[in-house]
């Protein structure tokens, strides 16, 4: 016995308006008209229910729509916002089923067969899909049936969720108009000439005669009208990166509102990543700047790699804040984008003695909170650079997945005297007698020098512009403090304190 086919449809009506509300939550509940992209005499291409209540309909000019009584908000269509909303809808479906098909703007199908053990019966699955869509800031209608057309019809007729019982597709479709089949103009005209207006009427036609007159296409349409849908789902695969964008009707010239908009994008990205149990190991941002007269808009962009893969909005915002505060965009901003490169952080086995590394999730959350405190770039695993320059190092992300004994980079002497470095080296005043330092004065440190050894010359990068030369001295002050001084050819510096 062949398994029963069940298809779920997630349908977001008036999708362009829904995508605009998702990107700009303040528009929720307001009469909203979406205009086609900028050109003279812009037309309304979509109006939400509140706008329709004011008499605003697609095809009106912007001026005519604005002339209707009532507070109407007009927004230009923003393809990147719609793409982000579409992807969010697909991800909602993908969380519930491995087979998902993208059918158009605001329309997604999923294979709903065999999900009962995971999510309960079909009404429960439908309610869960609707709830997850709401989490993604989309109000989707859900239909579940045995075929795509029946599921789409169910979703269109639903307030929120409608499930057509198995085997009842044909009866469910009988009264629906044939326009539901996305007919070609010629086919629609021919069926209209025959007086076929509903799917029930199409389903009742003799199949043999229909094939003779309309060919294979006619047979296919009739099968769909009868609730038969043999074509498998065309699977959708998530793209290699997640993206959230925001287009502005006004130009932002202040950083704080910009941070607020980026934070909204980061939170939406986090919700999408969390829905698929993913984190991100790289984030990219870009801002489109206001164009000067006669020039095309300029884009400023950047990228950063978090110390550990994360989806924590606070961590992302800590880095963005620091980056943009250090180098603000040179002109007002009209659009912004935030992208995340997803990675799946593998679960790691905890060792029996409980002394393992932190779980990636715990580590990511902790690091995110520490970043918010100390700023990005101030934490990580130190890596020594291949240079004799003092304090030559960089910080790398901490690997959460590693385990087992770590080996020292080289065998060391555990009883080595540590140097506490001054970063940057502290300017010092040093008095010399006979070429040897006898008195030191620096911030927080002053006194006669009772013993000194040096100078020890170190130099490097002499083949580059950034060559360096230091004459180093180890000194002991009268109070017992041991320090390292350096003379760079022009001034004395306190490099550090031995402790």
């Amino acid at each position, binding site marked *: 016995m062949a398994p029963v086919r069940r298809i779920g449809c997630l349908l977001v009506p008036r999708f362009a308006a829904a995508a605009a509300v998702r990107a700009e939550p303040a528009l929720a509940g307001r009469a909203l008209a979406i205009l086609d992209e900028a050109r003279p005499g812009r037309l309304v291409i979509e109006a939400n229910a509140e706008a329709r209540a004011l008499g605003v309909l697609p095809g009106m000019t912007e001026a005519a729509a604005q002339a209707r009584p009532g507070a109407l908000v007009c927004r230009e269509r923003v393809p990147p916002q719609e793409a982000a909303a579409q992807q969010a809808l697909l991800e909602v479906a993908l969380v519930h089923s491995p087979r998902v098909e993208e059918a158009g703007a605001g329309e997604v199908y999923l294979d709903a067969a065999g999900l009962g053990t995971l999510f309960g019966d079909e009404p429960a699955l439908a309610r869960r899909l609707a709830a997850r869509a709401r989490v993604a800031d989309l109000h989707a209608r859900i239909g579940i049936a045995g075929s795509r057309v029946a599921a789409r019809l169910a979703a269109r007729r639903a307030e929120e969720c409608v499930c057509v019982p198995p085997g009842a597709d044909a009866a469910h479709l009988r009264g629906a108009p044939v326009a539901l089949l996305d007919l070609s103009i010629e086919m629609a005209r021919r069926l209209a000439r025959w007086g076929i207006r509903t799917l029930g009427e199409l389903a009742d036609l003799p199949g043999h005669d229909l094939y003779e007159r309309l060919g294979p296409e006619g047979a296919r349409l009739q099968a769909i009208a009868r609730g038969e849908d043999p074509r498998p789902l065309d699977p959708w695969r998530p793209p290699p990166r997640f993206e959230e964008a925001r287009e502005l009707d006004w130009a932002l010239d202040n950083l704080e509102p910009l941070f607020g908009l980026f934070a909204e994008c980061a939170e939406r990205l986090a919700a999408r990543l969390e829905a698929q149990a993913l984190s991100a190991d790289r984030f990219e941002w870009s801002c489109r700047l206001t164009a000067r007269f006669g020039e095309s808009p300029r884009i400023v962009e950047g990228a950063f790699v978090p110390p550990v893969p994360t989806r924590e909005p606070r961590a992302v915002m800590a880095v963005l804040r620091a980056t943009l505060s250090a180098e603000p965009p040179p002109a007002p901003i009209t659009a912004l984008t935030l992208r995340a490169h997803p990675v799946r952080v593998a679960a790691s086995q905890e060792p029996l003695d*409980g*002394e393992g*590394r*932190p*779980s990636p999730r*715990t*580590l990511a*959350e*902790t690091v995110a909170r*520490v970043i918010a*405190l*100390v*700023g990005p770039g*101030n*934490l*990580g*695993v*130190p*890596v*020594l650079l291949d240079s004799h320059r003092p*304090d030559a*190092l960089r910080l790398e992300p*901490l*690997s959460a997945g*590693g385990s*087992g*004994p*770590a*080996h*020292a*980079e*080289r*065998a*060391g*002497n*555990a*009883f*080595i*005297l*540590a*140097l*506490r*470095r*001054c*970063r940057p080296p502290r300017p010092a005043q040093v008095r010399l007698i006979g070429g040897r330092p006898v008195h030191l004065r620096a*911030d*927080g*440190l002053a006194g006669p020098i009772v*013993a*000194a*050894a040096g100078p020890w010359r170190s130099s490097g990068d002499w083949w580059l512009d950034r060559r360096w030369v230091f004459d180093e001295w*180890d000194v*002991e002050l009268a109070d*017992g*403090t*041991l320090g390292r001084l350096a003379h760079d050819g022009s001034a004395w510096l306190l490099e*550090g*304190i*031995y*402790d």
Partner: protein
Amino acid sequence: MLEAFPRGQLSEIVGPRSAGGSSLVTSLLAHATAAGELVALVDGSDAFDPAGAAAAGAALRSLFWVRAGRRLDHACRAAELLARSGGFAWVVLDLTVDPTPLAVRQTAALHAATWIRLQRAVRDTPTRLVVHASRHLAGSAAALVLNVTRGAARWMGAPRPTRLAGIGSRVEVARARASSPGGAWEIAWRL
């Protein structure tokens, strides 16, 4: 000596400048990381020298270094977060600062509740939390306090020194909740 630091408790290493406290911390980092343990170092004064730690045998890839930018309050908060996560075998909070007016003000501004919070953060975790400071800060929140006192510096070369050879330190257990105080170690640090 590593075994003296209790798990799930706050310990303190106290010593004046150039007494050897940082060398003791570096030695601790070297032993712990070489044994495969993950160590977080919260550096309140941005003074840690990774090259020196590597020379002491530390496995730097097991060392998570947080540079708190001379904000001692942020350093304490970061150490609290790291200790609370429970995933680090050691969390070392370095609050040793030079006696500049700003640093002195910051140290004085640390509230007594800070140490209680730190002690509670590490409680019931397998983490050892170690605070290194120039003076005793943690009060009764510290389960172990090690006092590091300065010995004589050793110079090579006579009559005029040509090289610093090292220093001597005496490490004494000033307070130990689990055992009686009084233990002491003499350590010779070599440059």
